[in-house]
Structure formats: C-alpha cells, structure tokens
C-alpha cells in the first residue's frame, strides 16, 4: 500500500546527480576551450601529450590519496616520501653500477627498491594511525618531516645525481612512448583503471567507503577496520613509488626540493574530483580529472602572457576553493532535505 517508487522523482534525482558528477569534466572542457582561445597551439598534439605526461605524477599519487581520503584518513607525507624514495633509488642504482653494470638489471633493482620502500612507508603510516591510534594528520605530518630531512641528509644538502651510464637505460621510462602515448601516461591509465575497479567494484572499495562513512558501523559489520585502513596507506605508498619510478629518469636527480607540495596537489586533485574530504564517498574518475585540471591551469599560464606564470598557485587555489564551494552547495541541499 505504500511502496512504489515514483519514477519522476528518480529521474530528477539522477539528473541533478549527473550535473554534480559532471562538474569536474565540464570545468576541464572549459579550461581547454579557454586554452585554445588564448593560443590554438594549446590543443596541438605535442602540448597535449606533454600535459598528460606532466599530470601523471600527481594523478598517480592522487589515485592512492583517493583511497586514503575515502576511508576517512589523510596522507601529508607523499611529497617527501617521493623525494626520499627517489634519493634512495639513485643511491642504490649508482652503487649497483659497479657490480651489475649500467643495464636493465640495475634499473630493475632500483624500481624494486622503490616499490618495497613505498609499500613499507605506507605500511608505517597505516600502522601508526590504526594500531598506534594517532590521528592520520599528525602521523603523516611527522613522517613528512622525517622523509624530507632524510633526502636532505642523503644528498648532504645538495643534489643526488643518477650515474650517466644508467640514465641512458632508464631514460625511455619517462621519454619513451608506446602506441603514440608516453610511458608515464600508460602507467597513469593502468593505475587509474585498477584504482577505479578496486574502489567501485570490489569488497575492499566498499569497505573503504563504509569506514569513511561511519567507522563504528563498519566495525559492527565485521569489517577489519584497522587492516583496511592500513591497506589504504599501503596503496598510497605503492602509488607514490610508481610515480617516483617514472619521475626519476625525467631529471635524473633528487634533492630536498623534489616533490615539494605534491601532497597538497594530490589532495587538491582528489577534492576537486568530488571525493568528500571527511570520507565516505570517493571518485577515482573525478580524481583523474582533478589532476588534469591542476596541470592544465599551469600549462595555460605557460601559454599566455595575460596572467603571470607566478600566479599559477593563485589560479590553482581559486579553482580548489570554487570546486569545493560548488560541492558544498550540493551537500547543503542534501542536508536541507534530511532532518
């Protein structure tokens, strides 16, 4: 006597929902149009591949950050983690040249180390927040400082440079391409697809969302909350290590200024994409668009004299605030309906 879904309401809801999810995509398209109007070279193939390659670092890290944030956590250490991993990778590869030679073996060793370090660093962040019961913000603020000072220490305040012999072997990982797309873009695509599947189609993804939405409910629903939360940091660490692997051959060096503010860019990409900062709702697709939007802004400023390049941060900041403000409007509406 009561039931019966009302179809018109369902439709109305879906429409408004679509506008909300489409927001980042619309923003990106608008940016591209603006870019094209300012300088048609913006849409040249060369510039587009460059743009995609640049966004790969932040994008890959942001995919990991989407998991952490969806599960109600935060990871501030990713930028320093990338720098520290890059430093250690370079040291290890340089010292392996003598025994293994400057070939593939050395590069693989370096990449292997990167992955082990990334997973380990993520695991430490995870264990400290779950078993140690310290807020994620504090834990990762701490590890952020530690990793940053470690690179500075390894580089003795200067720059760690990759042995020139290895650079040749390693170069293609950043500069090479496959089927017309640069390797970093392929890595970005693979990470994005896997991340999307993991968050939207697996029990693990559902658990992340549940924990971010209400941890007590998750616990009473037989979810191993600590384990899942730790896993999100491990995923984050893994993403950082992948980003580092494709970043190192770009400059072939690491210093205390490597990866500075990457954590904020990654978090910004996640939030612009529509993931809720306090957890419980995550969107990988949005995150990817968010990363593209951030890179596009910088790229457009490079292309035009209208606004100084130094105002890149200002533009990014404005976009972040506007994006969140738009989302807030939507959430406000949803709130008004509740209660």
């Amino acid at each position, binding site marked *: 006597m009561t039931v019966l879904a*009302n179809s018109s*309401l369902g439709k109305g809801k879906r429409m408004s929902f679509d506008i909300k999810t489409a927001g980042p995509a619309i923003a990106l398209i608008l940016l591209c149009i603006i870019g094209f109007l300012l300088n048609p070279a913006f849409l040249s193939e060369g510039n587009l591949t460059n743009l995609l390659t640049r966004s790969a670092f932040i994008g890959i890290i942001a995919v990991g950050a989407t998991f952490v944030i969806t599960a109600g956590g935060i990871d501030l250490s990713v930028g320093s983690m990338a720098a520290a991993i890059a430093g250690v990778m370079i040291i290890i590869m340089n010292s392996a040249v003598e025994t293994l030679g400057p070939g593939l073996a050395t590069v693989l060793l370096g990449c292997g180390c990167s992955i082990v370090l990334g997973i380990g660093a993520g695991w430490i962040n995870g264990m400290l927040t779950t078993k140690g019961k310290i807020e994620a913000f504090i834990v990762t603020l701490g590890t952020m400082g530690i990793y940053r000072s470690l690179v500075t220490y390894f580089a003795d305040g200067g720059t760690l440079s990759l042995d020139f012999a290895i650079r040749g072997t390693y170069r293609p990982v950043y500069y090479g391409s496959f089927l017309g797309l640069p390797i970093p873009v392929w890595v970005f695509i693979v990470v994005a697809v896997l991340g999307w599947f993991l968050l939207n189609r697996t029990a693990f993804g559902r658990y992340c969302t549940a924990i971010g939405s209400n941890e007590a409910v998750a616990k009473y629903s*037989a979810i191993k909350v600590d384990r899942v939360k730790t896993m999100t940091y491990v995923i984050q660490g893994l993403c950082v290590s992948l980003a580092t692997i494709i970043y190192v051959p770009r400059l072939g060096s690491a210093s205390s200024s490597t990866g500075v503010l990457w954590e904020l860019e990654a978090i910004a990409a996640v939030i612009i994409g529509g993931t809720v900062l306090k957890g419980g709702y995550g969107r990988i697709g949005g995150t990817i668009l968010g990363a593209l939007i951030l890179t596009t802004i910088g790229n457009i400023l490079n292309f035009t004299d209208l606004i100084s390049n130094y105002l890149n941060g200002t533009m990014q900041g404005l976009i972040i605030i506007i994006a969140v403000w738009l989302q807030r409007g939507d959430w406000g509406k949803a709130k008004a309906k509740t209660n």
Partner: protein
Amino acid sequence: MLDGQSSTTLVLEADRISKSFGAVPVLFSVSMGIRAGEVHALIGENGAGKSTLMKILSGFHTPTSGRILFDGEEAILPPDGGAERLGIVLIHQELNLAEQMTVEENIYLGRELTRNGVLDRETMRSKVRGYLDDIGLDISTSARISDLSIAEKQMVEIVKAISRNARVLIMDEPTAVLTEAETALFFRQVEKLKKTGVAVVFVSHKLSEVKQIADRITILRDGQWIGTKDADALSPDAMAQMMVGRELSDLYPPMHEVDVDAELVLEVRNLYSSSVRDVSFDLRKGEILGFSGLIGAGRTAVFEAICGLAPIESGQVFFEGRETRFASVAAARDAGVAYLTKDRKAKGLLLDKQMRPNLTLFALPKFVRRFGIDTKAEDKAMARAIRRFDIRARDPKINVGDMSGGNQQKLLLAKIMETDPQVVIIDEPTRGIDVGTKQQVYHFIAALAAEGVSVVVISSEMPEVIGVSHRVVVMRDGQVMGVLTGDDINENEIVRYAAGLKREGRG
C-alpha cells in the same frame, strides 16, 4: 498561572498540512491541535509520517501546503530550530547532541550564560546539576556526551529541552531507549511540565505508555489523519487497530517447544570482560533465550565480548561443542554467530548511503565473484529482503538516514540475516517499531527458532522478553542473577532478580 479555561486554547495547530519530499507525498491534509497543559500523543505505523509532522510543527520542515497557527495566528516558523525562541522545542528521534562536548556545555549550547563577557561556568554548572537531580539522572555535569549510554543521552536531551522554558515540547519517541524505571522518572517530569501549562507532544510506539500518560491521542496512518481522541476513550488494543487499520491477532506467536536434548550451540563459562563478571549460560539449538535486566546491566557487553567486539578477560566460550574465542566480528560471522546492535544510527547503518550497500555490508564476502562485487546478486538480495521483512520506502533510492525509524530497524534485521547465521543475538529487536511490525518481528524470531536457529533476545521491554523467550536470563551489575523457565517467566520474578532482591544459588 493558568486557569481551567485556557487548557482548551490551542497553542499550536496544524491546519490541513500536506507534505511531499520531491514527488513523494508523505502527509495528506493532516490537522492537529495542541492545547496548553495537555499531553498529546501521536501514534501511527512506521513511516506514517509522525516524525515529519513533528518537524513541520517545529519549523524543521516547511509544509507543501496548509497552515500552522501559533497562538491562534497563522505563523511561518523560523527554520533550523529557530522556533525554540518562540518556545517550541523539538527533541529529534535521532538525538542531536554535540558528542565531544560535556553535558553542561550541551545543555547551554547557543545560550551560554555570561558574566562580564566571560562564561559563567559556576552558575551554569549548578543549574545543570539542579536539573539533573530533578530528573534523577546520576551523571556528572562535566561528563562527555560520547561517554554516555543512549538512555542517558536521551535524558540529557530532555533536560536540555526542559531548561529552555518550552511552551510546546515536542518529543519524537523519547522513551524508545528508556527502561521502565527511567520512563517513570521521565513521566514525572512530564506531569510537572504539564502542570505549569506546557503543552507536551510525544510520539511513541509503546501503547500502554501512551494510555498511561496522554490526555489526547492523534492517530496517523499512511500520512492520513485517522482521528484525535481522548485517551480515556481508547484502549491500547483500539489504538493499535486504528493505527494498522485492521484487527491485530495475537502479538506473540505460539511458542514452539525446544527439544530437551537439542544440542548446545553456545556454552559460556565464567566469562569476565569489561563490566561483565562471571557470566555463564547455555544456548540450545532452536532456542530463544531472553536477556532481561536494567540498562547497564552488562547484557550487551556479554555478547560484544563473545562476538569479538570487545576483549574477553577470562572464561570460556564453547561454540558447537568446541572451545572458541572469536578474534573478530568477521570470525564470529563466518562461524555463524551474528550480533545486531541496539544503536542502529551510530553502529548499525550507514545513514548517508542507500539501502543496498547497507544490506550487503555485513555479508559482503558472499557477494564477491572473482574479485568484483556481484551487483546483480545484491539487487536480488535487496528485493528478497524488502519482501521478507516488509521494508517500506516510498523511494528505494532514498538514503537510509531519510527512512522512517522502523523501516531502518527492519533493514538492520535484514542486513544481519543476510549471513544466514546459526546464532543471532538481537539487541532490542523492536526499538522504535510499530505494533504491527513488532508482531511481524516476533513471528519472524519464532520462525527462525523453529528452523533450528538459536536466538538471543536482549530487551528492556519486559512483555517482549516474556512473550517470545523459552528461557530468560536476568542480569544485574554485570552478573547473572538467575535463569527463569516456564511459569517463572513473569514480570514479578524478573523485576525481583533485576533489582537484586533475589538471586539464584550458585553451584
């Protein structure tokens, strides 16, 4: 202050109020007049629109059509609790306290007393102490809300409302989480308020309670106004009938006897954990074991320890004859033991998600096919659960937090049953559920037991424990005071054990 005549003047009146959420109509031209100095009960099935009407009367929702009259004049109530300044206070069904703040801070939230621009904590503290003592609530004024039990939180809400000098006090299921003793205390406050001319409106599914305290009763069914009657003119049975629109057969199902030599599924020996001391009991296959006692007697703690939600300090648990200690809720679930929490808002359901992910969350591994979640199977499970538990949501895509309380409870039950457990522990199975649904739940529990599932029913509602259980364990202060069987299962005996007047010899 008030003479007899003014008790018939209407303070607040709903005049042909209709309300729709989106395109879904929820209330149809409902009228309700509230008099000063009366206790007016509002009853109806789950989803009848009671909470919605209460929210409209206090300005939290705006009606789609119809008028609100305040002191006889048409009024548009200020939104978001602003009506408190007019003296209309609503206590929500879902409690609204700042969890991290203290009792005192919550009670004075938004109208803190100051002296020379500085918080006057001394006065606030002593006033709050006075209120707490009046209502007989034995908690510290500086206790954090998050550390209180639900009943205590409810009482704090009531104190908060009383302290606001309300002219109209509207309460949505205030007694749902209270024990009988607490309810009695609470009613004493209501009587006091009533004498001072406050109009008290409350929603309740406990019809005997309604009969006891209400002067007038308004009945809603499916968003329609069915009638407003003097409480003297209605028996609880008549109320139930008006609510459901049909005659209700027996509330409790016929008892299916347990095989005397049915195997023991769960044996607990000398269990100690936080607020549980030396608890032992047995549970047979197909048995319904009631757990009675006052709130805080440690009943929930016993089962949280058994199900891996809290650490066991010492003692033994045998499951299906083998000593077991479930390390996690997942381990308990996989073995076939499921616990349904009494705190459905905070621990039971994800309020900002839809029904489907909530339904399958507990049994999610069952829905995994080759890494991914099988959403088709989820949909099927959802359709099945809606049928089996008669879950009514006018819009299936609604967030669970927007569903009526009773339907949330049914969804929670469905969620737990998704794992097909062998032992189900249901903590307060009918909290916030209407009579018709209560009957469904009791019959459901009986049917489960008849199929060989063992059910533990923890309940603070005495008639419920008595009505459904084969045996009743009574607890007090974390200890088992006695186990009642057969004719000994009656209110008198339970109360004597629960109050500590009687205790079984131990051996």
